[in-house]
């Protein structure tokens, strides 16, 4: 007897065909990323019968393999209320998760490398002030004094002190444990094979039914939406991430740049995690892989802002599959074609931080019919407009 790669370690034994007795629930969730798992948790906490179907492992794609930024800074104005609510939730993340997910409110410092970028920072700061977000602008001298490791190319930076980072490998699985403890059913290796209105969902030979369906399927959320006549231009987005060997600890803040061509942070163990550019993927398998050339570009960009990184060893790389939207804003809200279908996908490379609050908001939409965060900008129908997507000066970039 031999095992093969394609025999999933955790797959449930096959029932030998379709199970004719459907499993019923109040809410079905497709996709076990941060948003889906958090929705399961928040719904279960309020007594809702929830079944979540995940094609692979919980947090196996975008939620688990991103940079780990917990960041309000730099976001599109439409996303700021959602980010602020998320940040509030992060203050209690350990309680919500029931375990340490290495959340560190270390601050997010966004750098300018020329005058135009500095103006960009000032413009965003002014806008964000309207939402109550306080940033600290560091000029050339101040940034040199406080962060002596930056190179000459760095001329200014904007610090949002309450931003930070966490370990993406831990968040979704931790929320999943809590969701299960609260009574939710989370099924891994349950790839959805068909969805019928109603809703009747077939996965792993089992039928599931519920009057409410949450589409938190990340990149694959596009397929679910298309199934119900709401196709959206979602692309597979694969952030290219590299990790150095452990280096003496020097950098306590998350570092981003205007333009988003590189972003990095050093974890207390010493490794510098840097990203920039995109890897490649085949979402049908699914399989994704980081690429060397974007990696080298990110390395050079990182060395430009932090010269001491030159000569460090890159020991590891990764990427994953996220849903990227043309306007880099998620699709979030009720379906326009199908009652009971609620979307939350396409977080375009910056959904890690939002996941827990998105799940909570979804639970409010389902149970209360309302939430306190404006969602109009995330409406799925925005892609149906005759004139297409408008040019947007705030369009966020992958970071």
């Amino acid at each position, binding site marked *: 007897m031999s095992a093969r790669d394609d025999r999933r370690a*955790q797959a449930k034994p096959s029932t030998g065909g379709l199970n004719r007795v459907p499993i019923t629930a109040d809410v079905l969730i497709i996709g076990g990323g941060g948003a889906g798992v958090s929705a399961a948790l928040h719904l279960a906490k309020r007594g809702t019968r929830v079944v979540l179907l995940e094609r692979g492992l919980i947090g196996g794609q975008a939620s688990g393999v991103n940079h780990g930024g917990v960041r309000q800074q730099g976001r599109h104005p439409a996303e700021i209320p959602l980010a602020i609510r998320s940040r509030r939730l992060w203050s209690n993340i350990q309680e919500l998760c029931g375990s340490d997910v290495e959340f560190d409110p270390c601050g997010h410092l966004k750098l300018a490398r020329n005058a135009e970028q500095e103006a960009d920072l000032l413009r965003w700061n002014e806008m964000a002030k309207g939402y109550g977000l306080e940033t600290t602008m560091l000029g050339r001298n101040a940034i040199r004094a406080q962060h002596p490791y930056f190179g000459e190319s760095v001329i200014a930076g904007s610090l949002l002190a309450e931003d930070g980072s966490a370990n993406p490998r831990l968040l979704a699985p931790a929320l999943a444990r809590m969701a299960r403890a609260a009574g939710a059913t989370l099924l891994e290796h349950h790839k959805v094979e068909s969805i019928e209105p109603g809703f009747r969902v077939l996965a792993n030979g089992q039928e599931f039914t519920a009057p409410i369906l949450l589409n938190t399927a990340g990149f694959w959320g596009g397929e679910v939406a298309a199934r119900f006549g709401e196709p959206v231009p979602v692309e597979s987005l694969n952030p290219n991430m590299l990790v150095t060997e452990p280096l003496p600890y020097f950098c306590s803040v998350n570092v981003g740049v205007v333009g988003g061509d590189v972003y990095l942070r050093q974890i207390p163990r010493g490794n510098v995690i840097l990203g920039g550019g995109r890897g490649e993927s085949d979402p049908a398998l699914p*399989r994704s892989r980081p690429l060397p050339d974007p990696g080298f570009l990110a390395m050079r960009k990182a060395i430009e802002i932090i010269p001491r*990184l030159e000569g460090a*060893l*890159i020991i590891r790389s990764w990427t994953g599959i996220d849903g990227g939207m043309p306007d880099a804003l998620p699709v979030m809200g009720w379906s326009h074609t199908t009652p009971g279908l609620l979307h939350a996908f396409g977080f375009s490379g910056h959904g890690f931080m939002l996941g827990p609050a998105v799940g909570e908001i979804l639970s409010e939409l389902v149970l209360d019919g309302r939430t306190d965060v404006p969602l109009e900008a995330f409406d799925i129908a925005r892609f149906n407009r005759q004139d297409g997507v408008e040019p947007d000066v705030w369009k966020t970039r992958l970071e």
Partner: protein
Amino acid sequence: MSVVVVGAGPAGVRAVERLVEAGIRPVWIEESPDGGGRVFQKPPPGFSRDAKALYGADAARAQAIHDTVARLRAQVDWRPGTLVWNLRPGPRLLNTQGPDGTTQEVPYERVILCTGAMDRALPIPGWTKPGVTGLGAAQIALKAQGLAIGRRVALCGTGPLLLLLAWQLTKAGAPPALVLESAGWGQTLRAAPGLAWNPVGALRGLAWRAALRRKGVRIHAGALPLRVEGADSAQALLWRDAKGAEHRTEVDGVAIGYGLKPETQLADLAGVPFAFDTLQRLWLPERDRAGRTAVPGVYLAGDGASIGGSVVAELAGTRAALAVIEDAGQPVDPLETDMIHRRLWLEARFRAALERAFPYPAAHAAAMPDETLLCRCEAITAGDLRATDAPEVNRGKAFTRIGMGRCQGRVCGPAGAEVLAAARGCAVQDVGRLRGQMPVKPVVMA
């Protein structure tokens, strides 16, 4: 046709030799400065011992491999000191880093991966201390550097390498202070009929045993290392004999290695499917008997695909080259391929018997104490892994960082799988295998 051969051990050498005979000029990439592989590693210039002293009964084969490397270098695009750190099966590209640190992209139509093997580790408390090495490491120290790893050395392992190294050290005037063979006599005897598939090999083992006995070196069968003690270096080994009694022996060098483990990282990046081999208790890339894989243009040969030893590696290297030639539409001699298949079949019978006689001490690995630094790179303990609810090894890695360090799990991977499987109460194959990404070894940031 652009053919690349990765590795210049016995498999790579024979592959390149046959390609050159067919009029192909391959790119030949080797990570170390010279050919021969680990098994026939040459000392650097300055050392004087001859092949007989270095390789014993294998001297003639070692010499032939070295001579072939020397002859072939001028007939191929020879790139020593060069690491292949990534393979992209879609566009058929390798990424390399040369001796001066420069990186390059090397295209291939067909690539033969002859990536060799390394020690299969058995982590025990204290194994990260200076003075503790792999068993193959201790042999390389002797062969390539003329060193014993300490004044009083304990060898812990199983199978032919254990006996061979004990004998080589004894011959060099540094007999080991302690030899712990994990296999019991019963296991060895039960496998004896199978070992007869290779009478010469089996007799060699018996001869080493007899010679060691004459020199007063005792081999403790069924004995296992428990803990390396010492402040900043190995000072004593705590071990357990076949009857379960514990002993403490003062040593300043401890070599630990329980068979070998293929370096399969490039095959993994190529997307070659892996299957669990119950005999070697390892996940191995799948290939046909000619070395073809399911991935177009990717061929495997030698210990990098499955542990078979240097004789098998030479045969498999030749066979993989013939497969490349055949797949390129050139004729090959069916008598030769038949002959290679027959010899590989015979060797496989012997190898199977060896694996049964000298198995990896999986239960001992699974039971390692919680405080054992299972992952050397990240200094993560077996207890950390056991404390997770990870159903498989990649989750274990994600939760604990085991296997995330500079070596990317190539050292602790198999033992970690045993620990996790035991904690989950399932078979070791059911916790899966660690999946890799580039770079297969660290690459300098520039």
